[in-house]
C-alpha cells in the first residue's frame, strides 16, 4: 500500500509534481501513466525518499520510506537500469545490495535464476545490453521478496520475449497479493498489464480509475461508411441526431452518435446502397492522448493531432 497526500515537488521555479494524492492498493498492478515529463519518475523518487517533497507526504505501508527498518524486505524498486557501477560483476552487484539488508547469498542465486541471468552472472555490468540491464534491475528489486514493487518503465529496451516476461512477472507479483506500481508512457502496454490506472500530466493527477472503466468511458465509437449516395446518407444521419464528418474520399463519411446497426437500418429504410459499413473504436492510445493533450510537456510543432 502506497499513499500520497498533497505531494508537491518544486525544482527552482519548475513544479514537477503538483498536489498529488493517490493510493496504490495491493493485489493488483497499478499503471502509472503519463507523457514524458509528466512527473512519474519524480513521484517515484519521492516515494523512495531519494528526493524530499516540497509539501505533502507519502508513505509505504504506513511509514515514510526513510523510516523503514528493512527497506528491501518491504519495497523493491527499479528506477534506472543503468544506476549501477559498470565495473562490477552482476552477481557482486546483487551481493552488495543483498548484504546491506542482511539477505543471504542463496537469494542472490534465486533472483539471478528468476531473471534468467545465471549465464551472465560473472560478466561486468557495463557490457550488458539495455535489456539485460533491465533484468538485472528487476532481479535487484526482487531480492528482498518485498510486498511493494515499484518499476519505472520496466519494458524499456526489452525485446518481445523480455516484454512478455515482464508482463507475466508483474501479473504474477500482483496475483501473490503484492502492491505493484509500474510507470509507462504507453497506454497500450498498460492496457495489457495493469488493473488500475493513475494518469498524470504536468504533475497533476488526471485520472484514478480502473483500466476497464477507462476503456469504457474513453472509447469514442464511430462508424465508417462508404456509399455512392454518401451525401444523402449524411443528411439522413444528421436528421437522426448524429454528427457526420467527411472521410478520406468523396464517397466516405465518418458518423458518430449512431452505432453501425442504426446506420444500416437508416440506409435500408431510404434505399441507400452501402459498400462499406465499419464500426470504429478509438484506440486506447488515442483516448489517452485525448486525455493528456493539454498536459504534454513538449508538443511537436504542427502536430497533426
Amino acid at each position, binding site marked *: 500500500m502506497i499513499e500520497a497526500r498533497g505531494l508537491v515537488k518544486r525544482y527552482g521555479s519548475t513544479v514537477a509534481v503538483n498536489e498529488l494524492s493517490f493510493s496504490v492498493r495491493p493485489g493488483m498492478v497499478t499503471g502509472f501513466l503519463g507523457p514524458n515529463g509528466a512527473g512519474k519518475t519524480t513521484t517515484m523518487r519521492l516515494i523512495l525518499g531519494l528526493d524530499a517533497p516540497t509539501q505533502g507526504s507519502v508513505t509505504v505501508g504506513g511509514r515514510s520510506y526513510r523510516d523503514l*527498518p528493512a*527497506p528491501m524486505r518491504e519495497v523493491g524498486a527499479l528506477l534506472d537500469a543503468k544506476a*549501477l557501477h559498470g565495473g562490477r560483476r552482476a552477481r557482486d552487484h546483487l551481493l552488495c545490495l543483498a548484504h546491506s539488508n542482511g539477505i543471504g547469498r542463496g537469494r542472490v542465486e534465486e533472483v539471478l535464476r528468476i531473471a534468467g541471468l545465471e549465464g551472465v552472472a560473472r560478466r561486468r555490468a557495463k557490457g550488458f545490453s539495455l535489456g539485460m540491464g533491465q533484468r538485472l534491475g528487476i532481479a535487484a528489486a526482487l531480492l528482498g*521478496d518485498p510486498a511493494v514493487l515499484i518499476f519505472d518503465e520496466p519494458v524499456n529496451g526489452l525485446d518481445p520475449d523480455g516484454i512478455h516476461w515482464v508482463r507475466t512477472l508483474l501479473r504474477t507479483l500482483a496475483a501473490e497479493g503484492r502492491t505493484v506500481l509500474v510507470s509507462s508512457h504507453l497506454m497500450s502496454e498498460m492496457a495489457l498489464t495493469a488493473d488500475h490506472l493513475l494518469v498524470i500530466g504536468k504533475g497533476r493527477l488526471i485520472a484514478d480509475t480502473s483500466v476497464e472503466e477507462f476503456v469504457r468511458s474513453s472509447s469514442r465509437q464511430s462508424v465508417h461508411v462508404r456509399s455512392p449516395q454518401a451525401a444523402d446518407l449524411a443528411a439522413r444521419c444528421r436528421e437522426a441526431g448524429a454528427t457526420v464528418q467527411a472521410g478520406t474520399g468523396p464517397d466516405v463519411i465518418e458518423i458518430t452518435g449512431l452505432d453501425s446497426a442504426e446506420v444500416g437500418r437508416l440506409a435500408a429504410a431510404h434505399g441507400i446502397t452501402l459498400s462499406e459499413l465499419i464500426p470504429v473504436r478509438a484506440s486506447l492510445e488515442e483516448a489517452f492522448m485525448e486525455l493528456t493533450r493539454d498536459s504534454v510537456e513538449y508538443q511537436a510543432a504542427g502536430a497533426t493531432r
Partner: protein
Amino acid sequence: MTGAAITRTSPDYRAAFRPSTFGDVLRSEWTKLRSVRSTFWALTVTVVLGIGLGALISAVSAHGYARFSPSEKLSWDPTGVSGAGMYIAQLAIAVLGVLCISSEYSSGMIRTSLIVVPKRGRILAAKSLVFAAVTFVVGGVTNFVAFIVGQALIAGHAPHAALGDPGVARAVAGGGLYLAALALLSVAAGTLLRRPAAAIAAMVAVLFVLPGIAQALPDSWRNPVTEFWPTQAGAQITSVHPAAHSLQPWPGFGVMCLFVAIVYAIAWTLLDRRDA
C-alpha cells in the same frame, strides 16, 4: 524465465525478516570495495610506490651522505628517508577514497544504494569505516616494509634507525594512522563534491598545490600556514625529528583529525539533506 517461483523457497524466510543493521551495511560496503578493479590497482600502486620509491630514495640518499654538509648531516632523518615514498603513494589512497563514493554518483549507483539503505548516514559511516580500515592495514604494512627495506639499504652508508630508537616505532605506525585519516578526508571530499574530477582536484590541491603555494609566502605568513596546514600537521605523526615551524607529532595529528571531522560533518549534513 517464468514468472513462477518469485517468492523464497525456504519456509523460514519470514522468520529471517529482521531490521537492517549497521553491520549489514558494513558488509555491503566491504563487498562493494572488493568487487571493483580500481581498489586492487590503487592499493597496488600504494604498496609499490611506498616501498619502491622509499627504497630508491633511501639508497640514493645514503650514498650521498658522505658528501653532505655538517648541517645536512645534523638533520639526517633515516626514518623520514625510508618513508619518503609514502608522500607520493598517498595520492593513490586519496584518489581511491574519492572514487569509492563519487563513482557512485557518476554511475548512478548512489540512487540504488540510497534506496536499499535510506538512512544515508549509515552508508557514509560504513563506507568510511571500511575504507579507512583497509587503508590503515595496507598503509601501515607498506610503511613498515618500506622502513625495514629502507634501513637495510641505508645501513653501512649512513646512520640508520631501528624500531627501538626513541620515536621511531611511533613514526612507523603513524604512517598507517595518517593514511587512515587521509582516507576519511577523501571519502568526505567525494561526498561533498560528488563529481570525481572535482573531488580529486580538491584533494591534489590540499595535499600538494596549496602547501606548495604557501612556500612562496613571506615567512611571517608561511610559518603558521606550514605549521597548521592539516595534512602537513598530520604528517608530523610520521616524523622522528620535527622540522622547524611544525607541531609535535600528536598535536599535529590532532589538528588533522579536527579538520577531517569538520569536513566530515559538512559532508554528512549535505548528504542527508540534498536530493540524490
